[in-house]
């Protein structure tokens, strides 16, 4: 495999220039997880200016621990106090005494740190490109590159009690780690800017529920408290349809508290975010060369758009060799992007974000976008008609919507769901064409 840049050029503007005190929401669904994008954020933050302090910081509701990430040695960066990892998996709900019986780690190793970072603890989930320097040891021995021992053990979050008190305890723990990172800056430099990556805090919300006094409001306040101590915040959320749409009034069944609270938290976060990046699978089913769609929606002058328009919608189709959920590096290389300017919606950024999340607006927006995509692809269709036709068709939610020419019929034979769809030649104003 040829070597590829860790950051795809098309994505770089969106993940490497986070504005101060901004919130970036990254929504994912079951078949299209955001792990790879989180790693890109990490890489962008940690590798931009080697030597300067741009600490990354991860709180994991889900497990995402790698020793070497895209060529970054996280253990070494931890030694240099540029990166800190807070473990939200190991002991969040289970008692520390029994959990640590096997690993023989103290439950809260604030004193006498023994390990640098058990990042290699996973059964070697490492990218094949980056060889692991030492095989996974069975005992948690110190790292091969011994750094200063005060580099700090992994803080492990543990949820105790209920209500806002429990959340406050978590917040204090996270903020203390952030302060450690900030204080480790050499004196001759300014205070470090801490990028905070909070990975799936919605698990906290889902797993506690209203009976423990944690709701969407409390989570939102908790997040805002965390934001205050960080330079920029990246937040990942689950945006699966049952979690968002069951709570709406048009749902068939009454929503459970889990669904209503999750929808409130996700939509509220999307409102407050400066940028929403949405990952989802193709709605026509899995394809071999495209694993999903990434859309970035930002309410600030997009670094990629030269015109300075307030809202830019980017459609990035990722192709990959992988199956469900895998978004490939090589794929992003052959990415196609439609940068579409939305005029007149500059004042309604929040509503546009909501449009990502609610079903009705969503379809409208797709339909509208489709016309533009088609018109912009006409030139391309002469050159690389095969790939374009297939990609665009896999983007089309309703296959009968806008086929451009008879050729498309043959391109989409690989997509099993669409072969029997009728093909109509649309009228001239297909921008407003509805199914």
């Amino acid at each position, binding site marked *: 495999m040829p070597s590829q840049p860790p950051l795809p050029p098309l994505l770089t503007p969106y993940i490497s220039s986070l504005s101060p005190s901004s919130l970036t929401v990254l929504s994912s669904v*079951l*078949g299209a997880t955001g792990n790879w994008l989180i*790693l890109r954020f990490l890489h962008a933050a940690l590798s931009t200016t080697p030597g300067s302090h741009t600490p990354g910081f991860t709180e994991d509701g889900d*497990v995402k621990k790698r020793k070497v990430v895209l060529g970054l040695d996280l253990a070494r960066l931890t030694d240099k106090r540029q990166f800190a990892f807070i473990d939200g*998996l*190991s002991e*969040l*709900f*289970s008692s520390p005494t*029994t*959990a640590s*019986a*096997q*690993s023989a780690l103290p439950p809260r190793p604030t004193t006498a740190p023994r390990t640098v970072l*058990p990042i*290699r*603890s996973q*059964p*070697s*989930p*490492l*990218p*094949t490109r980056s060889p692991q320097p030492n*095989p996974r040891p*069975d005992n*948690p021995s110190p790292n091969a590159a011994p750094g200063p021992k005060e580099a700090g053990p992994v803080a492990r979050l543990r949820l105790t009690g209920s209500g806002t008190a429990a959340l406050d305890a978590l917040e204090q723990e996270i903020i203390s780690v952030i302060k450690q990172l900030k204080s480790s800056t050499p004196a001759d430099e300014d205070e470090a800017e801490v990028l905070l990556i909070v990975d799936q805090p919605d*698990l906290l919300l*889902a*797993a*506690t*529920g209203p*009976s*423990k006094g944690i709701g969407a409001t409390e989570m939102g306040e908790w997040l805002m408290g965390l934001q205050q101590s960080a330079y920029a915040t990246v937040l990942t959320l*689950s945006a*699966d*349809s*049952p*979690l968002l749409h*069951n709570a709406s009034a048009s749902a068939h*069944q009454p929503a*459970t508290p*889990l*669904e209503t609270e999750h929808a409130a938290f996700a939509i509220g976060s999307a409102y407050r975010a400066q940028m929403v990046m949405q990952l989802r699978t193709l709605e026509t*089913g899995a*394809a*071999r060369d495209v*694993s999903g769609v990434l859309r970035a929606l930002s309410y600030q002058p997009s670094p990629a758009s030269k015109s300075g328009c307030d809202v830019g919608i980017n459609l990035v189709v990722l192709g*990959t*060799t*992988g*199956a*469900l*959920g*895998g*978004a*490939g*590096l090589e794929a992003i290389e052959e990415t196609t992007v439609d940068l579409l300017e939305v005029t007149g919606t500059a004042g309604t950024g929040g509503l546009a974000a909501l449009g990502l999340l609610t079903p009705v607006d969503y379809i409208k927006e797709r339909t509208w976008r489709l016309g533009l995509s088609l018109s912009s692809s006409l030139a391309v269709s002469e050159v690389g008609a095969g790939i374009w036709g297939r990609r665009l068709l896999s983007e089309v939610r309703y296959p009968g919507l806008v086929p451009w020419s008879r050729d498309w019929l043959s391109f989409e034979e*690989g*997509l*099993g769901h669409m072969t029997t769809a009728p093909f109509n030649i649309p009228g001239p104003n297909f921008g407003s064409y509805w199914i």
Partner: protein
Amino acid sequence: MSFRKRNIGLSAGADRASIPNSHAQPQQTTIKPESNPGIRPSPDDGRPTTSTGTPSLDNLLAGHGGLPIGKSLLIEENGTTDFAGALLRYYAAEGVVQDQKVHVVGMPEQWGRSLPGLIGPADAANEKVDKRKSERMKIAWRYERLGEFGAGVAGSRVPAATSSDQNQSTADGDLVKQPAFCHAFDLTKRLTHPSITNMTFIPLVPSNEPLLVSIVKQLQAAIARSPPNTVHRILIPALLNPSLYPPDVCQPENILPFLHSLKALMSTPTARITAMITVPLSLFPRSSGLVRWMEILSDGVIELCPFPHSADAVASSGAATANEEPPQGMLKTHRLPVLHERGGGSDQNVGQDWAFTLSRRKFEIKPFSLPPAEGDTDAQDGAASAGMPKKADLEF
């Protein structure tokens, strides 16, 4: 005729000859920590995997050729059938045969005595495969190995599901010294194996602490008690089933922390655990937020949709050929243990519709294909005789 210079040693040829060994051996020597028969490195990224006891399910798991250690598989089933239970039994029996420690949650010990009986290694057991193999030998025996070369690193050991059985047997045939990775079982027989008494059964008994919390603690204790390097399998049949579990288990604040703790336990650095959980979908539909969260917390999600019983006629016509058994249901993969960002290695399987067939001897997953319309044989014959030009007509 060659473009190579003469009088120069054929070093390139020697290299080429050593390629298949060179990419098979380092994986085994470096990744495989000790000789454990039930564990082999994934051909996709080298992580240790173990078999689910069902060869075609192993092949479905994102190119790993097995369930990666530390990962869990959630099997959802619609309707009142128990195909998922059969998968669980194969999974448990494979663990017993491989001398792994099997923990069963919420089932009596009777369940452990009804595991399917061992036939033998999966490749040797199937005489149909052998027949197919011998047929192929006649056709292209000299090209047989070329398929493995051309398949690349990922395909060299774990074949695509379409040609899985043949390649499986040949790939395993190369590694004669290796013990079998996956075995075949017979559902009508009972498993008798010396280590079957080694299974742990965790009953669902009410105690003073919440039920699921006590289950996690018992699992933790049992795993901590066992010697290191033991491979564990955790089976949770029919999770949330109201005939087994009390109703308060279905609350999100109980079940989700349970799954989260299970995930934490499985990702403990020193432990080597896999898990298989089944959920009845009729009671807990996928469109509910709770089930979606359970899926998010699992590493692999597979849904079984058995055909309704009245559709036997339809199902029987689903067999592509006469000697194939008709599929008994559809299988959907919602999430596969794709664990690194290049995705899995099973890209030729993406987007296919899968059907499953449970027979006495195996649970087979294969691509679903609709047969040609039945009762239309007249038209087909007519087309063949009249419509199609004869060979003589085509020659010019």
